[in-house]
């Protein structure tokens, strides 16, 4: 597929300022976005693809999408190649539009090197007014409160328990299942099988999450290679084909209607399943991001493996254990027991799904005839702002 003729530039706006002592960088991004959308005759609600580079303050697209209140973004790209980033983005936006990943893509750039913006380039030299910064717009209202992964995910678990009656015992079953898998993984950081009681008796880290509700902290790494069907068939490895993939940020959106009981998987999941042409019931193996037990429970619900609020019942009694339950998950032991390299577990989720589809998982956890798998992750914080990514893969006979 080529991008030729598949995408059109419909809005363009150059911010009139050349010296912005009275505006933040985030504000200049937003004002530029308003200008380009107005030029096109479109609104922020029409935007479903967002592209920015290293000049965007904060956590890239997540900070900016939230700051600008873009409710419908389902595709993001923060490729950073310096000054050429936005031309690279134009290419990536056209690819995304041609592939049906988004229909209205917004690319923004802004900065204040004359006024000590957070990324002043050579030739700038201005300084911010005393006591002021120009970083992530949310920072002054969030980082002061001592938010960590533990307590922001704890807030999600607390609210989920309040709304749906989810229990610590049910969450504990997720760790138990991961530990049953990790015992067979010679590289697993934690190889001991644990019980529900072990989880409940481990010390409280941040209510209601115990020590054993948390993932491991590990050094390490991983990599994945993706290629064309032609090249794949010329190689000597089992064929693992990507069927569908989708992404979605989840934001606070001005604090209106905050709901910490669901994740961005409610948007990325259905889109990925639709593209793949399969349903959750078809999935034989699931790699589900497991920074904490609550992360797994919420994503399982949001991906449609069970109804919202019924995740607690779904994960209990070993339902996630390979060879025992209906949805074998994280058969490498996951982030909860095996590995969470540099606190980013996404790539290990892909890797174990590939092992399962190739039939190369440990024999004790290999899912028989595993021909369809999902890898799903959450990045950022479930309790603050995050982005969900879903990929559905199949083994080609």
């Amino acid at each position, binding site marked *: 597929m080529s991008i030729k003729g598949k995408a059109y530039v419909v809005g363009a706006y150059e911010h009139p300022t050349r010296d912005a002592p009275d505006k933040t960088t985030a504000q200049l991004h937003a004002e530029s976005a308003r200008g380009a959308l107005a030029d096109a005759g479109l609104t922020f609600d029409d935007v479903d693809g967002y592209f920015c580079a290293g000049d965007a303050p904060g956590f890239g697209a997540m900070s900016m999408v939230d700051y600008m209140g873009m409710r419908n973004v389902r595709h993001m790209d923060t490729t950073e190649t310096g000054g050429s980033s936005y031309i690279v983005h134009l290419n990536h936006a056209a690819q995304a539009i041609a592939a049906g990943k988004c229909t209205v893509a917004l690319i923004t750039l802004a900065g204040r090197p004359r006024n000590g913006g957070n990324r002043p380039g050579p030739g700038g030299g201005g300084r911010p007014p005393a006591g002021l910064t120009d970083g992530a717009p949310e920072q002054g209202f969030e980082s002061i*409160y001592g938010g960590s992964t533990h307590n922001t995910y704890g807030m999600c678990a607390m609210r989920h328990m309040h709304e749906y009656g989810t229990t610590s015992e049910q969450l504990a079953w997720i760790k138990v299942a991961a530990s049953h898998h990790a015992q067979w993984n010679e590289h697993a950081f934690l190889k001991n099988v644990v019980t529900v009681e072990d989880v409940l008796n481990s010390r409280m880290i941040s209510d209601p999450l115990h020590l054993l509700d948390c993932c491991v902290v590990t050094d390490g790494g991983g990599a994945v290679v993706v290629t064309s069907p032609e090249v794949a068939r010329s190689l000597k490895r089992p064929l693992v084909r990507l069927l569908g993939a989708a992404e979605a940020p989840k934001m606070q959106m001005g604090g209106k209607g905050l709901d910490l009981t669901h994740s961005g998987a409610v948007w990325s999941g259905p889109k990925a399943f639709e593209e793949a042409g399969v349903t959750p019931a078809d999935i034989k193996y699931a790699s589900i991001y497991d920074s904490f037990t609550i992360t797994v429970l919420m994503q399982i619900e949001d991906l449609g493996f069970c109804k919202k609020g019924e995740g607690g019942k779904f994960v209990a009694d070993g339902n996630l254990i390979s060879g025992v339950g209906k949805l074998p998950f994280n058969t490498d032991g996951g982030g909860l027991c095996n590995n969470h390299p540099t606190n980013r577990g996404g790539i290990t989720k892909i890797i174990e799904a590939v092992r399962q589809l190739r039939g190369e998982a440990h024999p004790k956890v290999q899912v028989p005839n595993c021909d369809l798998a999902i890898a799903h992750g959450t990045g950022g914080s479930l309790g603050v702002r995050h982005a969900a990514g879903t990929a559905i893969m199949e083994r080609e006979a």
Partner: protein
Amino acid sequence: MSEPMTRPIPAPAVTLESKPFFDAAAEGRFLIKRCNACGEAHWYPRTICPICHSDDTVWEESPGEGVIYTYSVMHRSPTGPYAIGYVTLSEGPAMMTNFVDVAPDGLSIGMKVKVKFLPTEGGPPVPVFAPV
């Protein structure tokens, strides 16, 4: 019964957009932003309304009253347990905060709370909430 919680708070990062908020905080006043175009209040405060995208937003003094949406008491802390959470303000938006002047086991979802300001280490005071 354990001691009421508090915590040392670092200086907030203040930007051009948030300076009016922290200037008011130094005077003990709690401001939120409201949009004249759509009428909605939002949090955290921005120049451009995150709900309708108008730039006609104004500061509004708030009594800082609301209810706890959720919370979590962090026990893994060298300065003692502290509570992070979200308050749903009576004006509508939810905001992240710390809960203070309450024991670690004294919080519950739905509890009524009110704003107060805590000093920070070398910066302006920041809003936290205590049970009414």
